[in-house]
């Protein structure tokens, strides 16, 4: 299919509701043509508001500007913005068949019957709905409905595709499978897409870059790996995965050292100055007491989670730490162990830098 995707430039976009609450603080964001960007955050963080502003379903405050490529769409209504949208519960037209749903946008724009048939046929192949063309949405499974919604949204070759929590309505197992399918389809379509989700795994699997949002602001934008490894904000660190937080005294912070269980160790340069350090549970290693460089600790709790063990460990003078270890690890609750954290795994809590 011919690609009309353009980049999106959002400048100083804000949304203040009638009662004075700020749904979105002035926000700048640039999305490259063909890029898939996830807006990631908990409910009420403003991600859906931002998506609806890009779509044209919400009017942003004065001074906001949205560009699709080189055209300013700030004051263009959604009907004329040429966006494709996939809704949380798909919003398929219940009285129409699968092919009528997919072809709706083309029909509205007055495409010829031949073109409608051709495009709908192509999309039915693409999203593997062959044989279901004449079914109604009520007769489809959740995953099939989701694919119809996607096909309908891209049928009239939108400039931008907007996905509002497209996988929320599915159960966990199916979600995982469809997440990879969706990522694959978006790559095939090479369409600029903004994908709203509260599920960090979904964002990691689908998006090229993600913008983590909290309380109406974008905290950090970057690809999943850099956000996971170098979170600029403790919220980003906790939202993308679990972290342990460890306090250190002003004196240790000044010398960039950490005292853990009576052992003082040097910290990497990027941690200098931070009074709070972060470390991910999968980076906490559990060894025997005699392991070189390890800190004495006690296993307080052992939880078997199938693909790994989650251990809660007590180190004297600190809050309990979480450690994720392989499911075959011999540790049992009550064991005395040596905890080792490789120095380069420590992340500074940048909010207090």
């Amino acid at each position: 299919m011919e690609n009309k995707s353009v980049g999106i430039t959002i400048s100083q976009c804000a949304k203040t509701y009638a009662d004075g609450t700020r749904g979105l603080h002035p926000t700048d964001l640039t999305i490259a043509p063909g890029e898939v960007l996830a807006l990631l955050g908990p409910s009420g963080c403003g991600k859906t508001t931002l998506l609806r502003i890009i779509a044209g379903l919400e009017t942003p405050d004065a001074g906001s500007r949205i560009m699709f490529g080189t055209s300013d769409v700030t004051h263009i209504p959604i009907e004329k913005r040429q966006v494709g949208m996939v809704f949380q519960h798909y919003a398929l037209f219940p009285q129409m068949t699968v092919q009528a749903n997919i072809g709706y946008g083309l029909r509205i724009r007055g495409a010829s019957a031949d073109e409608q048939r051709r495009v709908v046929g192509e999309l039915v192949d693409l999203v593997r709905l062959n044989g279901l063309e004449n079914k109604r949405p009520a007769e489809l499974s959740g995953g099939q409905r989701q694919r119809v919604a996607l096909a309908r949204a891209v049928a009239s070759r939108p400039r931008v595709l907007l996905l509002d929590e497209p996988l929320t309505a599915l159960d966990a197992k199916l979600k995982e499978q469809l997440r990879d399918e969706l990522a694959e389809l978006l790559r095939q379509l090479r369409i600029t897409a903004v994908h709203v989700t509260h599920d960090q795994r979904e964002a990691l699997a689908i998006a090229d870059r993600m913008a983590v949002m909290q309380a109406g602001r974008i905290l950090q934008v970057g690809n999943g790996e850099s956000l996971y490894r170098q979170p600029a904000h403790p919220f980003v660190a906790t939202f993308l995965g679990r972290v342990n937080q460890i306090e250190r005294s002003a004196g240790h912070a000044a010398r960039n050292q950490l005292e853990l269980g009576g052992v003082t160790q040097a910290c990497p340069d990027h941690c200098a100055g931070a009074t709070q350090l972060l470390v991910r549970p999968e980076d906490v290693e559990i060894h025997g007491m005699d392991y070189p460089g390890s800190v004495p600790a006690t296993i307080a709790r052992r939880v078997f989670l199938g693909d790994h063990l989650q251990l809660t460990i007590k180190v004297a003078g600190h809050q309990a730490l979480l450690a994720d270890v392989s499911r075959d690890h011999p540790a049992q609750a009550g064991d005395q162990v040596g905890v080792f954290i490789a120095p380069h795994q420590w992340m500074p809590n940048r909010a207090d830098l």
Partner: protein
Amino acid sequence: MRHHPQKMPPAMWLITAIVTLFMLTPMLLSVMAGLVENYGQGLSSGLTTRWLVEVWAGYGNTVVVSLLLAAVCVGVTLLLGVPCAYALARSRSRWAHHFEELLTLPVAVPGLASALALLLAYGSVAHFRQSFAFILVGHVVFTLPFMVRMVGSALRRKELVALEEAARSLGASFTQRFLGILIPAVLPSIVAACLMVFTLSMGEFNLTWMLHTPLTRTLPVGLADSYASMRIEVGSAYTLIFLIVILPVMWVLQAMGHFIEKHYGK
């Protein structure tokens, strides 16, 4: 999963049977009264259809009038009520809520009072006063709230708001999404509301009794007239005719409703 039907306890059976019998007796007596020669003597006086024939000769036209009036009333409430329901459902103004309450007022206010107000305002416009349009207006005032309420609550459903947004994102204009998406999506509610309006208009007596002229009588007004002025057998025969006319109409309308529900509902 297998579904085990719950067994009804005997006491429940008994209560159901008593209530059913209590409710059916008056209906059966009424039907019988219309078919016997002399109600005082009961069945021993013999069965006859002459009361039915007499009623049909005297009041047959009221049956046609009532059916037509109810049909036109459905049409008018559709044209006025569905757009009104949409406007109220999508309005963010708090006045919309007050307006909807006001609209419901004619249901609470006795029909006699509404009718009196209509007479005071338009009673002097002779052509209007003497035509069926005058009664139609009364019926619309009384039934419109039901149409607006039922269709409005369907249009307020979250999925409907999303359907409309989806249609907008695909480029549909207001008319295209209203007629092509919203109306079909709430069709079961619209059909149910039509059925309600038809039924209410068919049986409306209060307002109609105040508004009618000797030349503009509906079935319930004729019924009251026959009860007041004739033998009990004639009145009962009239009831029987009412049932004979209304039951098949209701069945057909309900069957249509079910059909649409099945094919357009979720």
